[in-house]
């Protein structure tokens, strides 16, 4: 990757974070000045008001910069075979112009990352994910006629999410009325070289737009201009995180530890241990980790499961310990919030597989009240994910709000 984004290389050390193509526009809106590090980029945690940002996702429209997402261009005659070797799902079933949520594993069947795979045509793909994997991709590709290239800093990305997003796009001259979930369309040429897909991380009606870096600023301005009457608001990760937990989505290295980043040998997880068992396609002749996953299923060696919890009370259970019968420690909450839309106290948790269906689960929440901890032992129930299901997410044509 070039350091173009970082400005003069000699000054990079002063603030060793890359700037996304939308950085200046976000900075201008930002009153909270709350940045965090996303894969080496400065990314906004909160722009001005986390609650209003959340409600923009659910009530109007929200604009979230996804440029820091790691992106690989994968193309060539063997691209499909290569991706079938790499990932868990059957890529031959992914049609051109569609997106597949997928994951990939190492030799031991331990998840390296999850991500979205975009298929533009027979032999051209883009893989988007959280962690960097170029050496792994190159080593997997070595016997295939395929070109793998990281394009993270060449492609700018914006997630436009929320009930008014389709109407906003129509106003902006982008017709998405026929676009079904996980479908891709080409952006009008006037907006630059790029694509729009009906995808997102909110469980709401929403779209993701990808354009070449040089067209990024104009695209933001164009959407912003048409967003005024549609309640468009720029948002940070804090708001997005609430929405994604409600939607039941997991985040690598938050809800599970990826195989390459884990320091402790017992931390990486099989797909079956983090709720990705449905992705594993054992009818494929081969893919990385297949043998290990098959063996683990045969020997029933799955140690943990990832579950959705509904917890009594309203105190978020972030990182709380999960107990069985209030005594035996059986897991940990990886993400816990009070859900403003479900009006329930919800959480994602890693739990000992033996308690997957068991009841009598409890979480111990330490609530800090003016320098004194209140230890709360709260009843937890395993519930279906997602925690909220919005019909507008999948309705085609989308609603005109």
């Amino acid at each position: 990757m070039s350091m173009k984004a970082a400005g003069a290389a000699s000054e990079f050390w002063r603030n060793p974070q890359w700037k996304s193509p939308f950085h200046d526009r976000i900075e201008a809106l930002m009153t909270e000045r709350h940045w965090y590090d996303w894969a080496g980029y400065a990314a906004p945690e909160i722009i001005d008001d986390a609650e209003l940002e959340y409600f923009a996702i659910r009530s109007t429209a929200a604009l979230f910069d996804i440029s820091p997402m790691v992106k690989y261009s994968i193309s060539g005659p063997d691209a499909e075979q290569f991706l079938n070797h790499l990932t868990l799902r059957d890529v031959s079933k992914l049609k051109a112009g569609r997106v597949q949520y997928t994951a990939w594993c190492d030799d031991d069947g331990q998840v390296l990352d999850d991500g979205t795979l975009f298929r533009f045509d027979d032999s051209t793909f883009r893989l988007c994910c959280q962690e960097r994997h170029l050496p792994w991709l190159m080593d997997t590709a070595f016997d295939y006629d395929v070109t793998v290239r990281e394009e993270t800093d060449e492609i700018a990305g914006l997630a436009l999410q929320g009930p008014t997003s389709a109407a906003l796009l129509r106003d902006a001259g982008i017709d998405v009325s026929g676009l079904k979930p996980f479908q891709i369309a080409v952006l009008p040429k006037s907006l630059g070289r790029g694509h729009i897909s009906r995808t997102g991380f909110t469980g709401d009606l929403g779209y993701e737009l990808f354009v070449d870096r040089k067209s990024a600023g104009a695209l933001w301005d164009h959407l912003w201009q048409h967003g005024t009457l549609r309640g468009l608001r720029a948002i940070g990760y804090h708001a997005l995180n609430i929405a994604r937990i409600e939607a039941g989505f997991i985040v690598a290295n938050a809800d599970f530890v990826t195989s390459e980043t884990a320091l402790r040998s017992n931390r990486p997880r099989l797909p079956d241990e983090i709720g990705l068992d449905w992705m594993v396609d054992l009818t494929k002749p081969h893919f990385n980790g297949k043998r290990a996953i098959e063996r683990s299923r045969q020997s029933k060696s799955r140690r943990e499961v990832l579950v959705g919890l509904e917890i009594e009370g309203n105190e978020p259970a972030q990182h709380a310990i999960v107990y069985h019968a209030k005594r035996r420690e059986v897991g940990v909450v990886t993400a816990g919030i009070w859900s403003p839309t479900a009006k329930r106290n919800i959480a994602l948790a890693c739990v000992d597989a033996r308690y997957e269906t068991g009841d009598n689960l409890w979480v111990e929440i330490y609530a800090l009240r003016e320098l004194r901890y209140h230890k709360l032992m709260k009843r937890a129930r395993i519930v279906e994910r997602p925690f909220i299901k919005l019909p507008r997410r999948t309705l085609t044509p989308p609603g005109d709000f």
Partner: protein
Amino acid sequence: MKSFDTIVIGAGHNGMTAANLLARRGQKVLVLEASQVPGGMATSSELAPGYSIPSIAHSLNGLDDKTIAALGLAGAGLRFEPDPLPTVCLLPAADPLVLPNGYAAPIPGMAGGDQKNWQDLLGSLSFQAAILKQFIASTPPQPRERSFQLKAEGLKAALKMKRAGKSELREFLRMVLMPAADVVQEAEIDRRLAGLLSFDATLGIAVGPRSPTSILGLYYRLATQTGQPRVPVGGMAAAMNAFHQAGVAAGAVFRFGTPVRRIVVDGGKVTGVVTEGGEEIGAATVLSAISPVATFGSLVGSRVMDTGIVRDVRSIRTKGNVTKLNLALGLRPTFKGAGNGATRLVFAPSVDDVERAFNPSKYGELPEAPCFEAILSAAGDQSVPAGAAYLSVSVQNTPYDLRSGWKKGRVALMKSVMTRLEQFSPGIAKAVVAAETLAPPDIEERYHVPGGHWHHGEWQVDRLFFNRPVFGAANYRAPIEGLFICGAGTHPGGGVNGLSGLNAAREILGAVR
């Protein structure tokens, strides 16, 4: 389609060892060999009419009596020369140092103090090597799957040392990864012997005596070459024919001139092989006794393997650094210190000389004064015409990637070795009837071993034991059901000892039971 219980790819001595044992246990075994003769890199070939000269390996030092009995090799005609193989250390401007029976016997004419230091060092190295032998002769435990076994084996070895005295264990842990040069220096042995040990520790491995861990090569030599050094009657070809005949007697079927094109894998399981001729032969078990890099890279292919192991296999350092010079001689040359029997000649006068010969190899260059060992055939050896002889020379530190190219390199190397030999046996150059130079790229081509390495892959600490050839396949099982591997690239390594074939056969029998 014909079908067998096990197909063995490669009739090298390890492949033949495994085939023999599997057939003895009632399996239907087929051995497929690319060349027309058995033995792989351990056979002889006709260099000139009437001259049968060891192609690469030239002694059977590692083959022990238990293996010989288990394979029925004596019944198949394997015989050894009765006289021990003496080692003659060639020294510039001095009389040679003669070891009448390898490291085994006292050295005639050596002063008492030097003699004692030599015996003391050998005693302690041999004691430690004997403990390593239990690891060498069995399948390495897999740390992930059978940690109990690993602990048990480690504990057993530690106990054995502890019983011998508490300092023995400490001494072993101190010495095991030392540079060979430091071991011989602190033992204060005679500098000529120090040169010999430095050479023996590093021959066939890309290290010099001052490289850390270089003592490991000596442990391996001592652990696999117990007893007397042995020369088979009739040469290496006769020994390999005995392996072949013993295999046939055990019931294995051999097909020569039948290279394998690929190993057929279906749904993660082996179903057989396809030969270069296009014939498909079925088997639920395939044992590939060739280079693991060739097995995984060419016969299996990375498309049916996981990325991690493909990455590991690709990182095996396969580039050989030993060149074989084979000389057919019209007359048996005389070397001071050598008698009428077969003799091992070593040119490695001191630690410095061995280290200096190693240095240029790091930069793709040939040594100015190469160190080498050579086997001079016995007077009256039947594998050469009457009155004639062969000299089979292994020259170390001759890198695969020679910067100046091997076309020039072959000529230069032959010239510098001949000049050296001429120094010790004037007139030898004139006696040469035929000569061949097998540099690592030649070995690669002739024996289908990527890199042309003796050990199929560097025999260094990062690629030993449960990391040989790679972590996850060191128990002779490839990560594909029914596919097993053995040969020099697997644990314990190269040398003509049959150990990897023995271990792999045991694993196959254990898996099908």
